[in-house]
């Protein structure tokens, strides 16, 4: 049997189906994408090889940089606003105990189980400057001006709020599990030693949550880079191209302007950026981990 497994042919035969699926479903499309990134293919008719032209255009394309900046903005928003909130809520929830704990855990998680399309339309109506909830509430409070929350300058913040709200429950749930896994004996010991709540948080909870934070931050960055559907349905990248994200811009170029070649070059850059950020994050956490 051992002999059988060390036979290269056998190994290959066993690996082949998996390799085949990987090559056909993942590798080939990526390679095709790279190839089309060098052409001016429009989806119909012939295409010609234009070398690095798409990439040259890309680097001068201000909308691409806006999209990249928006993705980073979203990632920072997730890390600096959503996650601290989620973690604090998780810790508070842990202390609640009893029925209330389950109830609030459920309530906080509700936005996460609602479909993205519903979320987007829900918020579109909340933000609507003519009949939206926000406008109505402000009007009743005596505000007389016009507030256009999805307008120029405000839109990106409005999008950020929706995305933070939507993803909050998921982040919280993971932190909550992390908190639950901390041995209560630690807290008791610390209290006996005279540590106050602050000390306990910074010296026990936070360090022990490190692996959880690592997972959550990585997921947040990936979610920010991948952002597409909510923003597409909420603002369609508008007004103008203010709330364009990389994935939505790619979609727009490839499927609305029908510049498949250009769209593919964006997707290649997209993959490169995702890989770089994943590697960078791993590095950062690996160094801390030692």
């Amino acid at each position: 049997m051992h002999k059988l497994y060390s036979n290269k042919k056998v190994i290959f035969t066993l690996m082949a189906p998996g390799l085949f699926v990987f090559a056909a479903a993942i590798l080939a499309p990526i390679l095709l994408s790279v190839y089309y990134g060098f052409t001016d293919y429009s989806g119909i008719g012939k295409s010609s090889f234009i070398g690095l032209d798409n990439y040259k255009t890309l680097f001068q394309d201000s909308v691409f940089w806006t999209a990249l900046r928006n993705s980073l903005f979203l990632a920072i928003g997730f890390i600096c606003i959503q996650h601290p909130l989620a973690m604090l809520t998780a810790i508070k929830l842990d202390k609640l105990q009893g029925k209330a704990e389950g109830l609030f855990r459920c309530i906080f998680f509700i936005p996460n189980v609602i479909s993205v399309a519903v979320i987007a339309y829900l918020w579109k109506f909340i933000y609507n400057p003519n009949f939206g909830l926000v406008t109505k509430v402000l009007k009743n409070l005596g505000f007389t001006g016009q507030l256009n929350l999805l307008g120029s300058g405000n839109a990106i913040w409005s999008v950020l709020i929706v995305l933070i709200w939507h993803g909050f429950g998921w982040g919280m749930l993971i932190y909550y599990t992390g908190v639950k896994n901390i041995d209560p004996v630690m807290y008791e010991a610390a209290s006996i030693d005279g540590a106050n709540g602050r000390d306990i948080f910074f010296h026990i909870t936070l360090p022990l949550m490190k692996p959880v934070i690592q997972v959550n931050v990585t997921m947040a960055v990936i979610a920010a880079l991948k952002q597409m559907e909510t923003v597409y349905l909420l603002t369609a990248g508008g007004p103008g191209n203010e709330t364009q994200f990389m994935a939505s811009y790619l979609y727009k170029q490839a499927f609305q302007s029908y510049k498949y070649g250009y769209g593919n070059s964006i997707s290649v850059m997209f993959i490169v950026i995702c890989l770089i950020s994943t590697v960078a994050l791993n590095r950062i956490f690996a160094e801390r981990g030692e």
Partner: protein
Amino acid sequence: MKKRQIGMLLCAAAAAITLAGCGSGKTKTEDTKAGQESSKETGKESSQAAAGGDVVIKVFSNLPDRTSGQGLIEQTLFDQYMEKNPNVKIQVEALDDESYKTKFKAYASGSDMPDLVNAWGQPSFLDEVIDAGLLAELNPADYNDYGFIQGALDGFSKDGKLYGLARNTDVMAFYYNKSMFEKYGVKVPETYDDLLAAVNTFKAAGVIPVSMDGSDKWPLSIYINALYQQYNGSTSSKEIREAVKTGDYSNEAWTKSLDQLKKSIDAGIFQTGFETTDYATSMNLFTNGQAAMYYMGSWEMSMATNENIPEEIRNNIGVFNMPAVEGGKGTKTDLTAWNGGGHAVTANSKVKAEAIKLLNYMYQPENWSKLCWEKGVCMSAQNFSQYLTGKETALQLEFVDKVNNATSISGVTFNDLGTNQFKTVSEDASVEFAIGQLTAKDFTDKLAGAMKK
């Protein structure tokens, strides 16, 4: 040695099973896909099956709603055709515009295109398709007695050859709420200044003057086009085409139209946040009585018969064209209208002759034209005056009147006159200009730049 061979055999068997597993998995997904598609094939499927058709015509349509509006009319005609020709079976696959265009591209790159397809008689869609040789040439002489209105088939012709038939005449205009106009003492604007005065009246009363679908962007582009016609007069159609082709936007009508739009927006002509208001919401603002006017195309004339709209509103809808501007050469009878969507037959269709027969059947005046009008769905691109029933809504008649009395017609508006890239850039620019992110010069520069390679 024997042992090893058995081992190898077992491995191969295992691999085969795994692969077979993959294979069956694939067919399964294909099955479900076919299932989804067949679920869209509405109509009398049972009778189709019973007929056991010899000829199968595959239709790819952009009218996914087969139970109302134009989709219903298309389906009705297909059903009629199958009844008359028991040997023909028509299979319909329908998707909405965006998905339709994407899948059309996918079909185009394969060899198995549907036989009868939907097409838009606009360069942004059609040029590429014709250049790739995807559409079958039609014989213009066949349609001499079909009563197509003048210029209706221009969009589907290239280099003197005809590639498709236009379905409708689309007119862009201001719908207005008659009772609201009465209530605030506003008369139907004769000039653009009247319109701006009306804007002030409605603003002061807390009513949205004009509801605008800015999220889709093209209504704003068309608004600019309509203003241009008012400044430049009846020859606009030709000059706009030239401008798009050459990238020369020096005609001062461009600047004037853009300035006028900016001035109107500063005066608050559209609702706050119009740039992100989508089609349905902008229409709702009007049909709920929050807006006094609504800038949209004639395809929404069925508002007058839509029972979901409150009676006091649906019975009081009127329509007027872009009013004349001061110092402009145009008049209010210079219409912003075009013949957009239509049908074409694909060049590589295996049943090309049969598909053309079906196409011709659909477009016989007593079919599409008559049905559309009777159901109040739209105005066909053919002369349908003989089908007036006397039961038309006032709104329908107003539109007919507009078309019959037009002194000039814009044809396809500027945003659809270039490539797909030009379409996105020019429509984006229209919104960016409207919200003050671009100046008039930036706008024309962008348009000029978009047509360059």
